[in-house]
């Protein structure tokens, strides 16, 4: 008790003893508290549903004629002469606003190829002489399973990109020496009668580590 003031030396002994005793009890209590607490569960995990498998499926949006042939599917939809007469091209009718009138037998078709109804004539692509084939403007006949040549006759740059692999999905092996590839054809993604890609539901957005997912930014304030 070297540096202690003389006046408190007498009392200090007991006071320090009380404190020591209190501290010892405190530590035992602390130990009990820790044991009772155990590992604790300091984190509550949120509920993140598993993603719907449709969002990781690689199936193309549309099936082309070529796909149907390969899969041995029912091709009766493509049997034009089952209803139409040979050597009698079906007439195309327009209403007062120059909009094409779709016959009720083909009511599943929506014509929307080109802005301002530019491509309103069926025989721009379909071959009126032979409904089982398609035609290019310069008279060439195109088979239904070889449509890129038809589409590309107008959409040249896109055809060039597609042929090089820069347009449309390619799957399989980038290293062609190790395996083959599967190329998607135009009609796998584009409806020939309404080629613009329709909007679709997106997969869910990211979930943050904790807390609820933030709301999407308000488009008005999209700065």
């Amino acid at each position, binding site marked *: 008790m*070297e540096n202690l003031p*003389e*006046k*408190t030396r007498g009392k*200090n002994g007991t006071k320090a003893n009380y404190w020591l005793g209190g501290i010892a009890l405190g530590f035992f209590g602390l130990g009990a508290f820790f044991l009772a607490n155990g590992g604790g569960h300091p984190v509550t995990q949120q509920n993140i549903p598993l993603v719907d498998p449709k969002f990781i499926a690689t199936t193309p949006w549309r099936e082309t004629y070529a796909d149907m042939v390969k899969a041995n599917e029912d091709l009766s939809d493509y049997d034009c002469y089952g209803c139409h007469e040979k050597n009698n091209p079906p007439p195309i009718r327009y209403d007062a606003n120059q909009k094409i009138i779709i016959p009720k037998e083909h009511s599943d078709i929506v014509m929307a190829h080109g802005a301002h109804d530019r491509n309103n004539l069926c025989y721009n692509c379909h071959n009126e002489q032979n409904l089982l084939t398609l035609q290019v403007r310069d008279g060439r006949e195109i088979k239904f399973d070889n449509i890129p040549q038809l589409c590309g006759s107008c959409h040249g740059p896109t055809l060039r990109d597609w042929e090089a692999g820069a347009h449309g999905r390619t799957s399989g092996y980038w290293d062609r020496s190790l395996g083959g590839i599967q190329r998607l054809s135009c009609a796998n993604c584009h409806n020939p009668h309404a080629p613009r890609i329709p909007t679709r539901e997106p997969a869910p957005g990211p979930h943050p*580590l904790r807390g609820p997912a933030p709301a999407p930014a308000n488009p008005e304030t999209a700065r």
Partner: protein
Amino acid sequence: MIQATRNYFLFLRRCGRIAFVGDWRYYAWMGLLTAICLFGLNAYCKQLVHGLIVTGMTDEVSWGVYIANFTFLVGVAAAAVMMVIPVYIYGNEDLHDLVIFGELLAVAAIIMCLAFVTVDLGRPDRFWHLIPGIGQFNFPASMLSWDVIVLNGYLLLNVYICGYLLYRRYQKKKPSKWFYYPFVFIAIVWAVSIHTVTAFLYVGLGGRPFWNSAIVGPRFLASAFTAGPALIILALQVVRRVTASAPAGVAVRLRSDVIAAPRQATLKDLDLLAHHLPELDTVSMEDRLASLHGATVLDVAAGDVLLRQGTTEDSAFFVLSGRVVVKREEGGRFRITRSAGPGEQFGEVSALAGTPRVATATAEKRSLVLRLPAASLRRLMQSHKMNEIVQSRMSERLMITDHGLLMLRSIVQVSMLINVFLLLNEVFKEFYSGNLHVASAKYLFIGLHGHYALVPWIWTAIGLNVIAMILLVLPLSRSLKWLNVACVLCIIGIWIEKGMGLVIPGFIPTPLGAIVDYRPSLNETLVCLGIWAFGLLLYTIFLRMAVPILQGRLSKANEGQEL
């Protein structure tokens, strides 16, 4: 050699034992700190079990309060040693012993830094991957590898310097210049480097425009030299207070001012002194006889006053037997500055310099004391060895003078002015040109896209810093009360500024523009508090060992005595 090792271990054992001895305030303080440490340890164990998800960090804000505290404490560690400059380069004696307190603070701060970095690691068990040779140490490309080297080197430097100086004091031997001066100068340069390297951790990241700026390094140093010495100013006053024996004004029970009549000193008294002070044997007989002129011997009982602070008289004293305690009134309380046993001196400074007494000396127990007029002492000091020993022992006192504190104040003052100036620079650079890299600064100062979490923090910090700066500039802060207020404001302001104001905004918004707020979790906070408590615990233990050594009360001379 073996004896030297055994002596050293005895020294360590005594130091270790004294850490467990104290009064009720000491036990209460240490008990509280230990309890907080244990909470922190428990919280860290939970983090090991569950992963860092128990903290508030995310991929967006991947560093949080652990690294914020680390950054702040590296600054404190660096600044603690910078106090060394006035002492060793400008020869300012007032701060001499305080240097040790600064270095001990640096040791405690570095240990805290290493702890903060370790608790931040996802896989601390893989620390060995950092060891050069055994692991894969990415030096010199990675600034983290530089940081590992400089921090550990700095720790070793300071542990060595403090250990050496304290051990020499313990042995009552003068430290040999070659064993510590070079290291002290290395430590000064190294101190600047640890904080610059830590700054470069941030500055080197081109992908974080808030950090990728040349001003970050200088700001780090400026804020470090504000907060570090401020902490030391406060710590020194705490040391002064807890080693105070009694408030001044309360009569330290003195037996009487009237001491039994002194008698003339004789050669036999000098021989008795030489028994404890062998250097006296080198004094020539002629000088010895001359020194007896006017010399007296006093036989005093415990409590007798031998000299009083503030009075002027020209005698120096040597203790022949017993023990004399020298107390100094500082800040309204008495403090023991040294304790003189047989062969040791007191009162020599005022005698030789003619200045008023700086302390009061009272006998601790029944003692025989030789009193020499200044002329006698000078005669004895004609001997080279005697001169050397008296000179070296003159500095063996533990004085925490107000003057020393005011010198620290001026360091804090200038640093805070520079710190605020650099802040203004940064604000101008961010906001004037209107380019788009300003997002993080916006988030920090004015909020961004509806997120304002940090705005109150940074403005509080700026407010505290500015008020502290004004206080420090005004003569008002020469009074300790206001100086302490200013120091507290500095420390809090800079802690917020470096933590919330630097580390977190660097992450918000993310490099892809997302804003995710960060808030430390309870577990994370407990770990931080635990490490702070551990650092304070270490520092308290260091002081508990260092103060008695510096006062001369824990020394080789009193080995074997009950503490």
